[in-house]
């Protein structure tokens, strides 16, 4: 029998409900896995074991009293270190927030607590969610559990790696241009970025406010639906939060796709004349075949303005970031340069920010500051906003014909550590298929759809209409039922650079 932490949340939910396992036992198994793999994986920045034990015990006690508990009560949870957690340090992967202990919980953290999820730790990420490999963290690199020499993707790399290695059961991430979907793809797990506004951003350290969205990273599609049930809903503290009530997403999990129209996006398969990796393309086309077999009508569709998504994104996101990150000045919280080093407050600001931010964050602050400057605003920020409107229109048109759009999540499988750190453009292109979805504010999902010859997972991306999460879940679930990709685990004991890493999760 597999260890408890190798199970999915819904499997655990059933065991816990039948009292065949306790939340304490599940937590212990998860912590044992963390102890086993964390030295080599480095998925976590902070472990909250004592707090977790208290939460798990509380769930067990409530169950013993015969209380009716929420579906995911007692299930271990890892949080990307971008979510503010009351009394628990929140760094956003940045030196400038080292030591910052928020006095409040993010809305989603409150929701997870209310649902009895057990917080095991805060996971590593690219600094301020800026990156696609988790190599931009100020606190070290996270490794891909399928191959320790490869990146887990980013920016929610810690969350994806932990879920894939079963050192958590479920995890939360954020996605501004692909930061949930791309690492989920690289690590062979499921990641869903819902419609912009479906989940509250309150208490989520902002990167690019008009694009940021919270979502779950899970081992399978059903877990993803269960997590969305926990996270989605209106929050009056977020003015961009959608008022419409959230449905029960598990009702979308049916095993056929009769009548569904599925469109393969040409621009996802080929960006400015360069095609995605051969094995990635093959796996995606195979998935489309599978959709067809499940009863869907499949076709191909072109969204020409997607070719501008990278430049548009790298104007809008840095512009918003340059403003959002202005508050990190050493005055109120986080890092401040030693006083003797600064003659006046301007120098204090400069040195604090120079010491506190890493190179990629600085690069984007400069890009954004430039794009918003007097005389350049119209040519850059405004123009980019207009093109963003065209991208949205392309999606609207495509959705007149199709119910969901598909393509690869990323043009490649997980690349090697250090492979793209010197070439920011190559790194940015890793998100070429995911960025347009944030531009449209649409729901997007990644799930495993195959493996490369060298054993790395390949992600399939599904894109839905605004508030079309149910269609995504339905298609994803039906597809998943016909494959065993989600059951395959990074299962072997691998020797890499003399490091021995157990990332075992038995094949089912």
């Amino acid at each position: 029998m597999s260890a408890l932490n190798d199970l999915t949340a819904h499997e655990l939910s059933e065991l816990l409900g039948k009292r065949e396992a306790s939340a304490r036992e599940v937590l212990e198994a998860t912590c044992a896995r963390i102890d086993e793999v964390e030295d080599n994986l480095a998925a976590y920045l902070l472990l909250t074991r004592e707090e977790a034990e208290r939460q798990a015990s509380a769930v067990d006690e409530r169950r013993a009293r015969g209380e009716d508990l929420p579906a995911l009560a007692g299930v271990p949870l890892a949080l990307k270190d971008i979510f503010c957690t009351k009394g628990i340090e929140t760094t956003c992967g940045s030196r400038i927030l080292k030591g910052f202990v928020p006095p409040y919980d993010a809305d989603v953290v409150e929701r997870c607590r209310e649902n009895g999820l057990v917080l095991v730790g805060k996971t590593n990420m690219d600094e301020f969610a800026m990156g696609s490999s988790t190599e931009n963290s100020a606190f070290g690199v996270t490794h891909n559990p399928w191959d320790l020499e490869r990146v887990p993707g980013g920016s929610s790399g810690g969350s994806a790696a932990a879920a894939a290695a079963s050192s958590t059961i479920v995890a939360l991430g954020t996605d501004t241009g692909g930061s949930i979907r791309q690492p989920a793809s690289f690590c062979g797990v499921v990641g869903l970025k819902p419609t912009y506004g479906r989940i509250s951003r309150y208490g989520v350290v902002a990167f690019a406010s008009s694009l940021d969205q919270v979502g779950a990273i899970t081992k399978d599609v059903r877990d993803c639906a269960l997590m969305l049930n926990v996270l989605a809903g209106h929050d009056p503290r977020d003015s961009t939060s959608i008022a419409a009530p959230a449905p029960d997403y598990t009702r979308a999990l049916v095993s056929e796709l009769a009548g569904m129209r599925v469109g393969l996006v040409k621009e996802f398969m080929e960006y400015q004349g360069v095609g995605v990796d051969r094995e990635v393309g093959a796996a995606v086309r195979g998935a489309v075949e599978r959709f067809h077999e499940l009863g869907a009508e499949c076709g191909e569709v072109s969204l020409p303005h997607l070719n501008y998504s990278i430049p548009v994104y790298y104007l809008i996101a840095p512009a918003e970031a340059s403003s959002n990150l202005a508050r990190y000045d050493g005055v109120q919280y986080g890092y401040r340069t030693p006083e003797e080093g600064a003659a006046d407050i301007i120098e204090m600001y400069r040195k604090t920010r120079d010491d506190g931010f890493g190179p990629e964050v600085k690069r984007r602050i400069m890009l954004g500051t430039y794009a918003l400057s007097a005389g350049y605003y119209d040519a850059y920020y405004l123009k980019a906003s207009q093109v963003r409107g065209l991208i949205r229109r392309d999606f609207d048109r495509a959705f007149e014909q199709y119910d969901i759009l598909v393509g690869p999540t990323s043009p490649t499988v997980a690349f090697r550590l250090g492979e793209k750190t010197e070439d920011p453009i190559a790194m940015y292109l890793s998100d070429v298929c995911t960025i347009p979805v944030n531009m449209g504010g649409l729901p997007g999902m990644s799930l495993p759809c195959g493996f490369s010859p060298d054993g790395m997972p390949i992600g399939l991306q599904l894109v839905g209409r605004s508030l079309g999460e149910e269609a995504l879940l339905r298609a994803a679930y039906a597809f998943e039922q016909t494959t065993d990709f989600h059951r395959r685990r990074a299962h072997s004991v691998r020797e890499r650079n003399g490091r021995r890493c157990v990332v075992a999760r038995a094949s089912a």
Partner: protein
Amino acid sequence: MAKYRPNIGLEVHAELNTRTKVFCGCPTAVGAQPNTQVCPVCLGFPGVLPVLNRRVVEFALRAALAMNCEIVRPSIFERKGYYYPDLPKNFQISQKRAPLGRKGHLEVTVNGETKRVGIYDVHIEEDAAKLLHPEDDRGHSLVDFNRSGVPLLEIVSDPDMNSAAEAEAYMNAVRDMLLYLGISECRMEQGQLRFEASVSLRPEGESELGTRVEIKNLNSFRAVIGAVGYEIWRQSQALDSGEELVQETRLWDDERGATEPMRTKETAMDYRYFPEPDLTPLEVDDEWIGRIRAELPELAEARRRRLTEQHGLSDYDAGILTGDKVLADLFKATAAEGAPAKAAANWLTGEFLRLLKEGGLAAEQTRLEPKGLAELIGLVEKGAINAPAAKQVFGKLFERGGSPSEIVKELGLAQISDEGEIAGVVDGVIEEHPDAVENFHKGKEQALKFLVGQVMRKTRGRANPQLVNELLRKRIGGG
């Protein structure tokens, strides 16, 4: 001096008196201990988001509509970026490209003439924290975030004013308006009204405006008037000597009574405005606008005009009455209770203001009610009490309110109009003062006055003086 024509524009920043801040639920009350009215939102902590206070929009709409502005739909909040320790996010949420209101006007009166000043825009923004610089030798400053996020209304005028006097009249009109609308306390000593001015000079007859100089750090009417006057003088001196003026921002020094350079156009701040992505565009529907328009009170200027034209009050009385919203409201309500306007105005501009001054009180601190005042005026008109008694009753109404007729009873002030009762007193007085009667017979009218006085004294002022006169004349003849 008449060689140049000044053009003056004013920006007024007014703190709105909503109970809570503009983007969070913290209270706005002044006088609290530093940093006690704060939360993660107004401290600009990571991850927090602004939520617009609807009441602030309501207040701003009142002002925009009162100034005849067109309402911009939707209006957009933007971020204005600059680094300063009183600004916790290092950007201020404000409005720029789509302010709540624009293209309005306000009428002001200077030397009896009405002038229309254009309103360029009216918009909502958040106040910054307050910096305190303790005078010890530790060389540090303190930040009080209680003020951070207090709602501000910024009213930007067109450069339509041509003298310091017009600027003063405009500021008065804006303050009166804010007070009449009940949306700001306008306490300048607490920084609730702050100003920025722009001054340019052009040769008389020239239509194009001259080089614009902006002046900051104006925290009182006096400072604005001083700074505007100084700038007009400085710029005309410069132009006279053939100097070219530079477009710049200058700082007013209250102590020196002069402006000094702060920055020029070349070193101007770049605020990098862009739409605030955490707030949705502000949609104000017709129904909302209609409701607010219907509820708008009459403003000082309009009310002053109505008082002179309809009620026949003097400019002077009308000016006094409308100069204080509470006073103006009292007048309006007293007249509505049926009191003649003239009498109501006399009481309010006379005895009422005298008592306020004597007690060092503000109008809203008294207990005088319009109904009571109207009744009192009625009693006097009917002859139920005489003037000195009426003053006594007014004093009581001022102190504790209540019903004038009760007070009259309580103090025994009712006028004696019973002929029999007065006749008895009259007879007694005639008997006691034969010499006065004789003098009267000799033609000395003064003597009659003396006798009336004696009757009044004996009745402690309560006798109806007209009746006393009549009876006396009847008794001693010569009537």
